[in-house]
């Protein structure tokens, strides 16, 4: 799985969490980095932050999909309905508002990877 998140402390927490349950995990801190990683190694699950230094995280979905990544989940700090709809329209299967409780993240990531 691939996490696209520009805050290193949030990224390190999620890395610890997902590696501890046995997921192979990469992180990217920008859209450009995510796209490069996606080409080298397509991800079955991409967790996307929306506010990235080089633009709207949703812009990474199309190039990542083209290079073979499959399932996209938005992890956002915005809890409004408009943001939610924008993420779903862009192709996310789910929109979760940060901080997502870790138990929920683990349980849900199993579903996303299975589905």
């Amino acid at each position, binding site marked *: 799985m691939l996490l696209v998140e520009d805050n290193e402390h*949030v990224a390190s927490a999620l890395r610890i969490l997902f590696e501890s349950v046995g997921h192979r995990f990469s992180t990217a801190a920008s859209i450009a980095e995510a796209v490069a990683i996606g080409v080298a190694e397509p991800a079955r699950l991409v967790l996307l932050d929306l506010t990235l230094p080089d633009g709207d995280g949703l812009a990474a979905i199309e190039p990542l999909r083209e290079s073979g990544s499959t399932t996209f989940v938005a992890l956002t700090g915005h809890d409004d309905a*408009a943001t939610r709809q924008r993420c779903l329209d862009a192709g996310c299967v789910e929109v979760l508002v940060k901080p997502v409780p870790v138990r929920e993240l683990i349980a849900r990531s199993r579903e996303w990877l299975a589905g």
Partner: protein
Amino acid sequence: MSRVESAEAPLTLSGGASESRVAALEAQLNEAAVEIAELRARDALKTQFLANISHDLRTPLTAVITHAEILRDGILGDLSPRQLESVRGIISGGRQLLNQVGEILTYARGAANQLSLVPTRFGVHEVLRDVSALSEPLLKKKQLSLTIDASDRLPEIHADREKIQHVVGNLLGNAIEFTPAGGRVWLRATHAGDAPTSALIVEVGDSGVGISPEHHDLIFREFAQVDSSASRSHHGTGLGLTIARKLVELHGGRIWVDSTLGSGSRFFFTVPLDPPDDALSGS
């Protein structure tokens, strides 16, 4: 404002003197208008800043809470009972801060007219039940009794459920905070059948400390707390009722309080069965 005070001076001058006086007054008025426009623009910028900063505060808080939950859940190894207690303290404090930041964000969006409604149909009794369930731990801690009086036969409302829940949550939170241990709080919903447009009235009442009538308007104003001294005994952003008012008014409803000092408070708000059209669009 002081510069336009001279407008009240008697205009008894004649001829050219009077014309130049009028011109001077006009110039002053224009200047004042420019100044007001500038202040408004600066106020809007501040509101936007508040919205941005409160949003940005969520990111480091996410890091703190997630790391602490990883420790709490033993993902990095088991903790001793005292370590666990300490980590739980970090999580509770973090979540409390997150809620306060969320309130500021909601306030800032409301002030900038960036709130819009996402209405669905639901029964108000469901919201009252949900809010009371969320407040269960606090009620228990203060040994308060809560009663809910809302028939499931009341008409459903077409409203933004999350926002109505937010209003009831803020009012119930206050009721719990300002009611001494052993007291009573209650939630009630009734049909305001004789209102010009059909609406429900929701009441959040308590047997607590009450609010003196001279403060009844003040408490709905932004940043207002009846006791604003540094030693004030009650905490919070002071935005809870301002936000409640904003969210109620967005639905086309009204909010008010009936209370006297020492004999409890009853907060009421109305929700029209259908929201006003102009609240549905927006960013």
